[in-house]
């Protein structure tokens, strides 16, 4: 598959005998489902019923989590949220191909990656509040999760910094002759960054077991992909780094899974890195502070809404008699109840103690930090409490 798609001018692979419906998706993308959501059996991954239904459940949970995150922000209960609407297939399709010991270096728009790896919703929600039970002790904005025990790397706001770091983590595994791979996520805008270039350069030269997932959602806040690169396809950049590159339909979870599985297998066999461009569309705003009507046509949204990855996967499952309306209703009820319970619990958590400000700067606080902590304690005794005068986040 990778070899077939490593050049830009290759024709679309899918030829399953079905009539082709027009699509907004680029023709060069590898796909399993056609526009009528029928599988091309030649490339359809052989996944068990359990795996398929688990993936569906995770996609659905990711959608509900995003909806809830945006709602909590609109209600003024949390300060900020970054939704991943329309990108669920990429998050769940990629992680389904991983082992639990593989390293994940995500960007900030991948809640589904955390959900599918097994991070608890309560822990994730505590991050949205930045409260005392937040793993990060309230030090990062919402969506910047970090779960070291799950090998889910700490999310950064600067773009693409994680790309080269993933190469380092996978190199460490390789040197110790372990079979773990590292996967990293970044957007189309992220490919313009220095760390994308160094990441793929180093990975190519050092032949590290790294899988690069570019979520090409066509916008970096307001700037379209055409202003990030003059290259026809981001997948083509792989050629310059000496690794295979493939573009896939990012709204087709089976295609994403199949491409990732092949890349992960290659990496595990010691055959080096792969760049996978997942072509999709950012259905939501960049963040809760963003208004996409300022910079993009609603026609694009409408066209991509017809390709909703969850609906498409549902139709596939229904075609296999694995899913029906009753099951859907039960699942929605169950997931929403789980989410509501976690929200209720997380919201009750208090803010972190002031003393936590001074923890984890170093393993042991310096004399300077200890004195500043003492001074702050004295100030608190004098003032009683601190007034919170922060403004709303603008970006």
């Amino acid at each position: 598959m990778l070899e077939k798609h490593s050049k830009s001018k290759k024709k679309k692979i899918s030829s399953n005998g079905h009539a082709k419906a027009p699509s907004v998706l680029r023709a060069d993308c590898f796909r399993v489902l056609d526009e009528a959501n029928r599988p091309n059996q030649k490339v359809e991954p052989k996944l068990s019923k359990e795996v398929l239904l688990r993936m569906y459940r995770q996609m659905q949970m990711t959608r509900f989590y995003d909806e809830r995150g945006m709602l909590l922000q609109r209600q003024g209960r949390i300060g900020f949220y970054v939704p991943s609407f329309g990108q669920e297939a990429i998050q769940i399709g990629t992680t389904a191909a991983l082992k639990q010991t593989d390293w994940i270096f995500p960007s900030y728009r991948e809640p589904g990656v955390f959900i599918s790896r097994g991070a608890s919703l309560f822990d994730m929600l505590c991050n949205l509040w930045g409260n005392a039970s937040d793993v990060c002790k309230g030090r990062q904005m919402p969506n910047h999760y970090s779960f070291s025990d799950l090998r889910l790397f700490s999310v950064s706001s600067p773009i693409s910094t994680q790309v080269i770091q993933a190469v380092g983590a996978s190199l460490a595994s390789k040197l110790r002759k372990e079979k773990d791979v590292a996967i990293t996520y970044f957007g189309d805008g992220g490919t313009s960054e220095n760390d994308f270039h160094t990441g793929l350069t180093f990975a190519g030269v050092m032949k590290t077991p790294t899988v690069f997932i570019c979520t090409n959602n066509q916008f970096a806040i307001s700037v379209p992909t055409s202003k990030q690169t003059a290259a026809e396809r981001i997948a083509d950049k792989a050629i310059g780094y000496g690794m295979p590159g493939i573009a896939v339909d990012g709204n087709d979870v089976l295609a994403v899974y199949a491409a990732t599985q092949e890349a992960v297998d290659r990496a595990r066999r010691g055959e080096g890195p792969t760049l996978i461009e997942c072509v999709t569309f950012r259905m939501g705003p960049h963040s809760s502070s963003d208004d996409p009507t300022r910079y993009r046509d609603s026609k694009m949204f409408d066209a991509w809404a017809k390709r909703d990855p969850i609906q498409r996967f549902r139709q596939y499952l229904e075609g296999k008699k694995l899913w029906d309306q009753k099951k859907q209703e039960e699942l929605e009820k169950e997931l929403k109840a789980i989410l509501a319970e976690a929200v209720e619990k997380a919201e009750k958590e208090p803010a972190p103690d002031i003393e936590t400000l001074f923890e984890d700067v170093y393993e042991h606080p310096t004399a300077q930090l200890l004195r500043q902590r003492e001074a702050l304690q004295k100030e608190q005794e004098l003032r009683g409490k601190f007034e919170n005068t922060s403004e709303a986040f603008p970006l």
Partner: protein
Amino acid sequence: MANLTLVQAVRDALLTEMTLDPRVVLMGEDVGLNGGVFRATEGLQKEFGEERVMDTPLAESGIIGLACGMAVNGMKPVPEIQFMDFIFPAFDQIVSEVAKLRYRSGGGFKCPMVIRTPYGGGIKGGHYHSQSGETYFAHTAGLKVVIPSNPYDTKGLLIAAIRDPDPVLFMEPKRLYRSVKGEVPEEAYTVEIGKAQVVRPGKDVTLIAWGAMVPVCLKAAELCEPRGADCEVIDVRTLVPLDEETILESVRKTGRVVIVHEAQKTCGFGAEISALISEEAILSLEAPIVRVTGLDTPFPYTLEHIYLPDPERVALAVGKVKNF
């Protein structure tokens, strides 16, 4: 004991720790086969193999980003930035990632590494092979900044840095790489990070310096002796965390202070030390604190000997505070 130059002490520390700890890996430009442009890693690739002494692509941000990922996944990387003047492409990885990781992950992820880099002027290196960038990094929470001035401290501090649980920027005064020699024990030993050293006791004026300015201050102290000023010289050794007590103790004794550094004056680390003394020991001062530093200009080529503090300039400053 071996009589080593400062750069040989660097190599000795790396050899010692790589032998003791298989997690220690080196990476950088020309550090492998070539042994580094200053020969700080000479022969180490032959000793430990290409997997532990890696010639990387020519990209400083890549070197540090790679080291960050390796540190997170259980290794102890010692990346080299060939000249400190080239560290700025890696500024984001150092400042926003390596230094912040422990804090932003609530202590979940740790990023122990030692970023070695030769710094400083006096070697006819022009603007891009001479700068002293310590202030940029001393201003970064989560990072430690260590600068040795002699071979013994170099080995001991570098081993301590490699064993430290936090990221350390280890700045090597390249002007002293081969111009100083000293006795260095063959075995592994550490010099505690965060401790300054009084390298010359005196009662009249406190000279505070680090790296290549320490020998300059020692020579200045010799010049001042016949002129009637007995100088105490403090080698700060670690800017972060700063040993405030050793500095303040000396100031309380002498009441007169000259701070010397190569970096430009405005916002140089001397300003921080000056502020510390003002906050903690102002009643001990008999004269205003004087800073002898590089100029607020880019680092020059031909006139670098004018730009850099030298013993006579320091001695003149000593006279100024002594006779205030």
